[in-house]
C-alpha cells in the first residue's frame, strides 16, 4: 500500500500490479464494481451494467457481487465513512432483497435459492462487521463472541440484521420442507448444538483460562518492570551518589533521608500534596530536610483542607524550620501540628543553641515578617520560647472559622 491508487476510473495502471481493493470513495454500493473496473482497466459503468445483467439471470450477479464484497478488502486509508453512507447502502440492499422476494415465484432456481441468498447476506453482514484485525483474531482464536465488532450502534444493528437474515434463511428452508419438519429440524439443530457444546466445551474453557493467565502474566511483568524502573531511577542512583560522596557524612545522610522518604511515600502512600494540611506540612518539611540536610520529624494530629489561613500557617512553619536548620546547630527538628474544629496549632521545636528572643536585631525580617507578620495578617498568633542553650520552640496558631 505504498503507492496510493488513484480512484479515477480512467487512471493509468500503476507500475505494481495492484491488489484488488474495494473503492470506498465514489462508490455506489460496496465499491466492488469500481475495484474490478480499476483492476481490469475498463469503465465502471460497464462493470456495473454487467453485474445488473447477471443479476437478471437467476441472481448470479447479486451472488457474485456479494462474494466480492465479502472477500475484497478496503484500503486502510479509506476506512472512514459516514453513517449516512451506510444508510444509503442498506436502503439499496433492502430494496434489492424486497424486489427479489416479490419476484420469488418467477425465479427459476427452486426453493433453496432465496434462503441461501438470505443466509449469504446475513453471513456477509456479520463477517464484514469485524474489522480486518478482528477477523484475524477470529481466525486465530475463534474465541471471542460474535459481538466483537459491536462497538457502536451501527455495529449492533448490523449484527442483529445479520443474525436475523441467517435465521430467516434457515427457517425458510425448513418451512419449505414442511411445518412438521421444521419442528424436527429445530430439535435436530438443538441436539447438534448441545453435542457440539459438550465436545468443545473443555477446549473453550481452556482457551479462556489461557487467555486470562496470559493477561495476568503480562500485568505482573509490567508491574515488575515498573518497580525495576523506579528502583533504577531512585535507589540505585542514590546508592551510586552515596558511594561517590562517602567522605561527606552530611551529604550521605541527606541523600539517604530523601530516598527513604520517597520510598516510604511509594510504599505506604501519603506525603503527596492533595490539598490537605497534613500533606502540605509534610511536603514543606521534606523540602527543608533536603535543602539543609537535617532531619525533620513531623507528627500531625487531625487534618483539614487547605485555605488561606492554613497556607500562611504552613509558610510560617517552613520559615521556622529554616531558622532552626540555619541557626540552631542541630541535626533534627521536630514538628507537631494539631488541628481541631476551632483552630490549628503548629509547634516547631529544636534542642539547639537557642537565643534570647528579646534581643533579635530589629533589622532581621525572618521572624518578624515571615512568621509573626504573616500569621497576624490571618488573625493568627506566633510566639517563641527560647533561651540560650535550651533550644527553641516556635508556637504558631491560626483560628479556623
Amino acid at each position, binding site marked *: 500500500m505504498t503507492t496510493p491508487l488513484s480512484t479515477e476510473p480512467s487512471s493509468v495502471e500503476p507500475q505494481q500490479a495492484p491488489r484488488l481493493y474495494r473503492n470506498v470513495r465514489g462508490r455506489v454500493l460496496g465499491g466492488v464494481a469500481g475495484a474490478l473496473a480499476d483492476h481490469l482497466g475498463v469503465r465502471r459503468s460497464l462493470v456495473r451494467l454487467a453485474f445488473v445483467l447477471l443479476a437478471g439471470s437467476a441472481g448470479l450477479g447479486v451472488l457474485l457481487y456479494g462474494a466480492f464484497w465479502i472477500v475484497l478488502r478496503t484500503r486502510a486509508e479509506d476506512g472512514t465513512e459516514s453513517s449516512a453512507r451506510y444508510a444509503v447502502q442498506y436502503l439499496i440492499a433492502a430494496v434489492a432483497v424486497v424486489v427479489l422476494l416479490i419476484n420469488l415465484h418467477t425465479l427459476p432456481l427452486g426453493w433453496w435459492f432465496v434462503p441461501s441468498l438470505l443466509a449469504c447476506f446475513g453471513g456477509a453482514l456479520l463477517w464484514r462487521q469485524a474489522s480486518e484485525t478482528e477477523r484475524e483474531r477470529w481466525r486465530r482464536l475463534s474465541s471471542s463472541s460474535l459481538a466483537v465488532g459491536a462497538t457502536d450502534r451501527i455495529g449492533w444493528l448490523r449484527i442483529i440484521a445479520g443474525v436475523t437474515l441467517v435465521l430467516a434463511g434457515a427457517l425458510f428452508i425448513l418451512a419449505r420442507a414442511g411445518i412438521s419438519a421444521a419442528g424436527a429440524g429445530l430439535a435436530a439443530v438443538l441436539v447438534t448444538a448441545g453435542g457440539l457444546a459438550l465436545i468443545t466445551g473443555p477446549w473453550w474453557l481452556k482457551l479462556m483460562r489461557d487467555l486470562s493467565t496470559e493477561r495476568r502474566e503480562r500485568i505482573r511483568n509490567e508491574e515488575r518492570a515498573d518497580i525495576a524502573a523506579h528502583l533504577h531511577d531512585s535507589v540505585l542512583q542514590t546508592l551510586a551518589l552515596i558511594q561517590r560522596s562517602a567522605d561527606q557524612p552530611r551529604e550521605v545522610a541527606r541523600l539517604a533521608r530523601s530516598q527513604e522518604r520517597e520510598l*516510604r511515600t511509594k510504599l505506604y502512600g*501519603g506525603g503527596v500534596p492533595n490539598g490537605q494540611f497534613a500533606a502540605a506540612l509534610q511536603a514543606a518539611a521534606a523540602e527543608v530536610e533536603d535543602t539543609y540536610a537535617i532531619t525533620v520529624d513531623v*507528627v500531625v494530629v*487531625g487534618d483539614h483542607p487547605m485555605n488561606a489561613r492554613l497556607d500562611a500557617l504552613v509558610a510560617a512553619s517552613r520559615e521556622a524550620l529554616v531558622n532552626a536548620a540555619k541557626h540552631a546547630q542541630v541535626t533534627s527538628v521536630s514538628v*507537631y501540628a494539631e488541628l*481541631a*474544629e476551632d*483552630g490549628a496549632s503548629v*509547634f516547631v*521545636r529544636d534542642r539547639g543553641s537557642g537565643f534570647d528572643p528579646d534581643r533579635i536585631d530589629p533589622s532581621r525580617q525572618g521572624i518578624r515578617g515571615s512568621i509573626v507578620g504573616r500569621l497576624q495578617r490571618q488573625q493568627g498568633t506566633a510566639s517563641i520560647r527560647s533561651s540560650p542553650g535550651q533550644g527553641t520552640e516556635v508556637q504558631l496558631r491560626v483560628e479556623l472559622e
Partner: protein
Amino acid sequence: MSKDAGPGQPRVVLVDDHAMFRAGVRAEIGSGLDIVGEAASVAEAIAVIRHTAPDVVLLDVHLPDGGGPAVVAAVLPELPDTKFLALSVSDAAEDVITVIRAGARGYVTKTISGADLTDAIRRVADGDVVFSPRLAGFVLDAFRDGGGPGGAVTSTDPELDQLTPREQEVMRLLARGYSYREIGTELFISVKTVETHASNVLRKLQLSSRHQLTRWAADRRIV
C-alpha cells in the same frame, strides 16, 4: 535520661530476619548491653527466648513466617517478666498498634541512633514504656474525636477507657518532641509520674475496643 539498669546489664535477644541488621545492632549496643541470643524467624525466636529467658526482646515487627505479635503472644504467657521492645522500619499505625496490643512495652523505628536504642532498652527493662512522638500522635488522633484541644475528650465508644486530661497533656508534649524529663519540668510533675501516664495510655490502648482500633487503623493508614 538513662536510669539505673538494676543488678547487671539487661540481657537482650535480637529478633530480626536480616543478619546484616542484627550485626549492626549488635555493634551499636553490644558494648552497653548483654546480648544473649539472636533469631531470624518466629519459631527460632520462641525457642531462643524460652532457652535464654532474657530481660528484653528487641523484636522486628515484620518476620517472614508471621510477625512480631506472634512471638509476643507465644512467649508472654510463659515468661510474663520478659519485656518486648518493637523495632521496625515501619511506623504505620497498624503495625504499631498490633504489636502494642500483643503486649510490647515500646516501639521504636530503625532510624533510631545506637545511644537512643540502648537507652530505650534500659528503660523498657526497668518496666517503663518507650513512645515515639509519632506514636503519641497516633494516640492523640484516636482519642480526640469530637474534642477540641484542651477540651474534654469524648469518644464514640462509651466502653473505651478514656485518656484523662493530664494523660492527654502528656501525650501532646510527647508528640511535640519533649523528653520525659522536659515534660516533667513543663507540667511540674516527676519523671516517674510522666512515665506512669505514658504507661496508662499504653495500657488503655491495649484495652481499646476492636471497633475503635479498626477505625483508627483505617483512618491512619498514612505514615
